[in-house]
């Protein structure tokens, strides 16, 4: 249960009270634990007699009482009765209940601070009046801004040590305000306090008559709950698509969380980046009244009238307000990984529910987050650094700019198995496939599907459609591998087809074969591949005819079917899924490619017996 408030009337009130998550951050020793202890004590949120008991204990042990001890005492006691502890504290005011997340008392790992702060709705940032603005004062300020926390109160603590001098306070305010402005953050207010002496915590301080603003407790009550996001444009990142097929349930439910806007039965929706369109047929709920619509920030499940293939990672929106789609964007990123983030290395990007390979396309600037103005002359992003980068993803992703839509405008980066960095998207950077993407979008939106869906085909074949592109210099043996791969897949009962670019030239391209408009050749090849892929095939192809740059166009036109890039020989492109040595053991290459198809979950199980 939550902490026991002294206020007995409140206890009996059954109406749910408003709750708010706040985080308290700042440089070590600037007084975070002391302030938490104070907030618990001065808001009357401690169990009866607790404060006196700890004070008495200190006296007996001949120690000076510290408000921070309250946390330790509560932690030690939680098993006997009171469940306040230092990682999640609860305190109450007349206005609402507060949860202090990841409050101090533990080792100062920035990643813990970030995990806590990412869940907070508002923050108190502490600065020691005597020491002034320090490294972590700045770093934490930067991180708050990056995390999208817009409500920040800066408490200038230990005013007792500087004789409650307004000049000291004003100087710190001026300096720190300027720093935060550089991070794009405008704090709500600066409050001079003494956490230890209790000045401006619950009561206005008699020592600082010059300060006319609210106390700390008043200032947290002035934080506002975020305005509902239901009035903005619709964004539902697809989390999963369910078809349970058990107990007579054949609903195909698209599930996700509505990050903004409202979705209702009859809405025409489009899924980005695939550009597939459909209409909402129903909104599904369990043990709740039937409904025709649902709004942010709820989790939702809905069905569609046309059975289009959509998958996790796409963003559903209304047709006229779709998110952006690109393989490139400019972002601010902070790095927490043990190993630095390096150019030329591939990472995993997680943006809403999308997971995709990513690498640094251009490292514009690496900044020390505790200084901001000093840009480091580095070609990698080290632990706790902040960087201005252009990232490039392996496949197109749908996103928004962070200032337009928070949830779809930020991402994390996974290195090895852990989240190693996070960032916000500042602007979209055009890649060379915009034209192709627009064409594909138009095509897919109007696409007339049959009654046999991609899922149906995948279920029968035991694999999804994919284009396996073999690349590599002349004479590396890719044609032979391609033939053997088709054969091996076919023999295993797969629906596989070797699509040689030359065959498209011979027939479909007859009219332009002589003029050789290479853009058009690529387009036609990709559209042919797209038809095979729509029919559920594993299409195997070599690319003698096309340059590497055209692969992007092909990927764009055949999406959402993936292009699996297998490179034979030296100089693999950065986005190769598999690199194999030239002119060795073609059978071994075929085995390796098939293993990779299984690993990527493209080939899932044996085909259905017929």
């Amino acid at each position, binding site marked *: *249960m*939550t902490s*026991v408030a002294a206020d007995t009337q409140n*206890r*009996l009130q*059954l109406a*749910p*009270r*408003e*709750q708010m998550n706040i985080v308290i951050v700042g440089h070590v020793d600037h007084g975070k634990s002391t302030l938490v202890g104070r907030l618990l004590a001065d808001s009357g949120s401690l*169990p009866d007699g607790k404060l006196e008991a700890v004070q008495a204990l200190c006296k007996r042990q001949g120690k000076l009482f510290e408000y921070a001890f309250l946390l330790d005492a509560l932690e*030690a006691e*939680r*098993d*006997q*009765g*009171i*469940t306040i*502890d230092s*990682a*999640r504290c609860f305190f109450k005011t007349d206005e609402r209940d507060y949860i202090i997340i990841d409050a101090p008392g*533990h*080792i100062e*790992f920035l*990643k*813990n601070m*970030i*995990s806590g702060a*990412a869940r907070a709705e508002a923050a108190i940032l502490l600065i020691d009046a005597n020491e002034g603005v320090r490294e972590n004062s700045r770093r934490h300020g930067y991180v708050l801004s990056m*995390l999208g926390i817009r409500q920040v109160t800066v408490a200038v603590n230990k005013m007792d040590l500087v004789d409650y001098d307004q000049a000291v306070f004003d100087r710190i305010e001026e300096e720190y305000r300027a720093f935060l402005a550089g991070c794009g953050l405008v704090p709500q207010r600066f409050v001079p306090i003494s956490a230890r002496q209790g000045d401006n915590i619950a009561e206005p301080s008699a020592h600082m008559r010059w300060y006319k603003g609210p106390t700390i407790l008043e200032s947290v009550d002035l934080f506002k*709950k975020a305005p*509902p996001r239901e009035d903005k444009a619709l964004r539902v990142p697809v*989390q*999963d698509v*369910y078809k*349970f097929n*058990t*107990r007579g*349930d054949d609903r195909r*439910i698209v*599930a996700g*969380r509505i990050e903004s806007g409202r979705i209702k039965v009859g809405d025409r929706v489009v899924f980005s980046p695939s550009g597939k369109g459909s209409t909402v047929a129903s909104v*599904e*709920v*369990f*043990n709740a009244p039937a409904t025709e619509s649902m709004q942010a*920030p*709820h*989790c939702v499940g809905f069905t569609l009238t046309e059975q289009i293939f959509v998958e996790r990672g796409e963003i559903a929106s209304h047709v006229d307000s779709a998110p952006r789609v690109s393989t490139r964007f400019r972002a601010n990123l902070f790095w927490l990984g043990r190993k630095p983030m390096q150019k030329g290395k591939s990472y*995993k990007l997680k943006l809403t529910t999308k997971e995709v390979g990513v690498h640094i396309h251009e490292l514009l600037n690496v900044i020390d987050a505790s200084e901001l103005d000093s840009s480091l002359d580095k070609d990698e992003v080290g632990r706790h650094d902040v960087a201005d980068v252009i990232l490039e993803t392996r496949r197109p992703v749908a996103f928004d700019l962070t200032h337009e839509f928070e*949830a779809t405008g*930020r*991402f*994390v980066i*996974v290195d*090895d*198995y*852990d*989240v190693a960095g*996070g960032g916000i998207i500042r602007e979209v950077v055009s890649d060379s496939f915009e034209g192709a993407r627009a064409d594909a979008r138009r095509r897919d939106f109007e696409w007339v599907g049959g009654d046999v869906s991609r899922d149906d085909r995948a279920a029968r074949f035991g694999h999804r459609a994919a284009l396996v592109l073999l690349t590599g210099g002349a004479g590396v043996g890719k044609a032979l591998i391609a033939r053997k791969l088709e054969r091996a897949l076919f023999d295993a009962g797969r629906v596989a087809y070797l699509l040689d670019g030359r065959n498209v030239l011979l027939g479909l391209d007859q009219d332009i074969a002589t003029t050789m408009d290479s853009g058009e050749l690529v387009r036609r090849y990709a559209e042919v591949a797209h038809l095979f892929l729509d029919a559920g095939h594993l299409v195997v192809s070599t690319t003698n005819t096309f340059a590497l740059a055209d692969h992007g166009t092909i990927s764009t036109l055949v999406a959402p079917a993936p292009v699996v890039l297998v490179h034979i020989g030296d100089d693999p492109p950065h986005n190769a899924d598999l690199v194999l040595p030239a002119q060795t053991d073609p059978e071994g290459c075929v085995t390796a490619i098939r293993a990779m198809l299984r690993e990527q979950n493209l080939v899932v199980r044996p085909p259905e017996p017929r």
Partner: protein
Amino acid sequence: MDHLQQLEDQSVYILREAYKHFKSLCMLWSIGKDSTVLLWLARKAFFGHVPFPLVHIDTSYKIPEMIAYRDRLAREWSLRMVVGQNREALADGMNHTRGRLACCKALKTDALRHTLDGTWPRMVMNARGQYEPEDNPEPYTGVIVGARADEEGSRSKERYFSPRDHNSDWDVADQPPELWSQFKTDFAPGTHVRIHPLLDWTEINIWEYIERENMPIIDLYFDRGEGIRYRSLGCGPCTGNIRSTARTPTEIITELRVTTIAERAGRAQDQEDPHAMEKLRREGYM
């Protein structure tokens, strides 16, 4: 917005993330109120279905009504029920008189660890409602658990997705960051992830939700006419009841708002050693 609805949405989101990312996923179900709420939330998340097995560790000392209740719900809700047990320790006569912590470790922690990694037999409920051994028990890589941060201190440091290493050990100080709704869903072979959809719920929230959803809950939590009820459920010998005449979730909520007694106060093993829970948890206890 309504706080309970916010908690529900959050838990549903986490459950769907877990289901998407872990091929070998299970949910622990102790029959108690928290894990039963968790089970209900799974039905919410998956529109009436529970698409992963429920694992119950049977110490053989559970209050008998709990086992009957478990099997009844399992049939009614078409649950895939998996039961694990430390048969060796039981054959050897393990019980709480040999030390409560030793007993908990053998019958719960060890049984759980080996049931999860598939090294000890698992009993699975078949279509006729009887238990039979599972053929090739595979280790679970994702384990959904109903822990709440407010229960006791060591749980408050958990993340929503908390990695455990090969020995089910938990490195509290060095956990990966958890940003926005991006959880730890990538993990090294041999390790597994514990998933905590109820982390932000309090004991009162649990009862408020049971009340709101009008969902079934085992009646041991209510006074059945003798002026006593259980506040927390465990093994018969180590779970004390409390004096209370609360007969409905509403009455329990009212009671909780004025009590200053800890939820687990009736659980004898916690009293044996002040660091009992932390120790048990490090070793993999839920």
